[in-house]
């Protein structure tokens, strides 16, 4: 017989699916319970995995007083909720954006832009290579806004739109595939981990 946790999970799954028929109070109650539990759990995880090991322990136990600076900057973020002094939140955000940009600028050029550009410089000997080069150039031409999209540029931009549409279609198709996997996992759980074993135990 499945244990109590499996029964709770199974029943909650059915309640959530009941929304597909129509909105109902039980669904809304469980939705609020889910949001509350998720928020509570996440706060606890962040406390134990981020604040305690990265701030409180080094600060209070090991005496790394320099950590007072990032702690103070973090607290400044909450000034947005005050009626006055909300502008103080811009300081930590500005530092965060600056640091992030500095770290990533080189990484993006070295790890993304250059290798990706290099990968489009291919001999036009195969159909696949022709598609790669044509797709890159025509799609880039669509995003070239310094000239009106007429004549050769217009044709190229139009082909670029087709490449974009095909990529959006692929993205949508794989999104459907992803969401279906979630449905399948829930159905698998209900059949093979909850109802199946429960019915077998009752026989």
């Amino acid at each position, binding site marked *: 017989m499945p244990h109590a946790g499996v029964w709770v999970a199974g029943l909650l799954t059915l309640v959530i699916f009941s929304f597909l028929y129509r909105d109902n109070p039980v669904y809304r109650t469980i939705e609020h319970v889910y949001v509350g539990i998720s928020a509570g759990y996440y706060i606890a995880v962040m406390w134990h*995995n981020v604040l305690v090991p990265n701030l409180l322990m080094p600060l209070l136990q090991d005496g790394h007083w320099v950590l007072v600076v990032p702690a103070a900057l973090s607290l400044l973020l909450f000034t947005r909720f005050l009626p006055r002094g909300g502008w103080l939140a811009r300081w930590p955000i500005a530092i965060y954006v600056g640091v992030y940009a500095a770290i990533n600028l080189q990484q993006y050029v070295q790890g993304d832009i250059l*290798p990706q550009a290099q990968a489009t410089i291919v001999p036009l000997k195969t159909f696949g290579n022709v598609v790669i080069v044509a797709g890159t150039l025509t799609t880039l031409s669509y995003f070239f806004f310094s000239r009106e999209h007429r004549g050769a540029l217009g044709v190229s931009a139009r082909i670029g739109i087709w490449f974009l549409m095909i*990529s959006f279609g692929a993205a949508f198709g794989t999104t459907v*595939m992803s969401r279906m*996997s979630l449905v*399948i996992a829930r*159905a698998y759980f209900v*059949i093979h981990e909850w109802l199946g074993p429960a019915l077998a135990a009752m026989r």
Partner: protein
Amino acid sequence: MNERVRRWIEAVSLLDRRFIFVAIAVAVVAPLLVPIGLPLRTSREAQALYDRVESLPERAVVVLGFDYDPSSMPELAPMTRAILDHLFRKNLRVIALTNYAQTGPIAERQLVEIAARFGRRPGVDFVNLGYKAGNETVILAVANDFRSAYPVDHRGIPTDSLPVMAGVHTWKDASLLIDIAHGATTDQYVRIAGARFGLPVGAGCTAVSIPRYYSYLQSGQLVGLLGGLQGAAEYERFIRKPGFASAGMDAQSMAHLAILILVAAGNAAFFLSRRR
């Protein structure tokens, strides 16, 4: 246009959305109750990842990124388990880490369970370094030294004292990094550990992310890719251990068939109604 076609167009146009839900439910549940055993085509990118792992010598170091949370587990946990099975069967050293605060225990549970099947021991054959806040900054810190980025593992044991970490100091001491992710962490590993420090990077991702990572495959920045439930099913097939992903592929195919029929019917009704 005859009356029957007109009535069909009207029926499709006014179709209750709950009919679609029922159709999808039947397409998903029926194959789970009675497996059909539809053929599964394996992809080049999944084969490439398997071959890369297969080519590693015994005790080589593989870094495994557990970069997902429970919302993506249906797709990513099966491929993680299949890859772990392969890594432990080949007696490779596994260094697990995560960029998600809530994923340390998820990684620990899977590592311990699958390692036990092959008699692999924590600290000797594998280590879970757990979570460290910082994403790119942590990846850059590992380039200097694993031990400074992760002084202790998930269980609080000093990393330096673990036999599994012997001789492992930076990315260059690992043979392969596989990031199982539902976010952008794979991009970060590709840009930093891969492009900057030359570590071969493989990936497992949700189906949503597949198109994004094909560009990295084409440029050679990813050595292999597992995409969604299908990727997991392919890897289960390579290691000859069918699990949840293999069982789910029949349902996946039938659900897609149902969606295709519904999309085709909707479009046919739309274009026929325009001709009217």
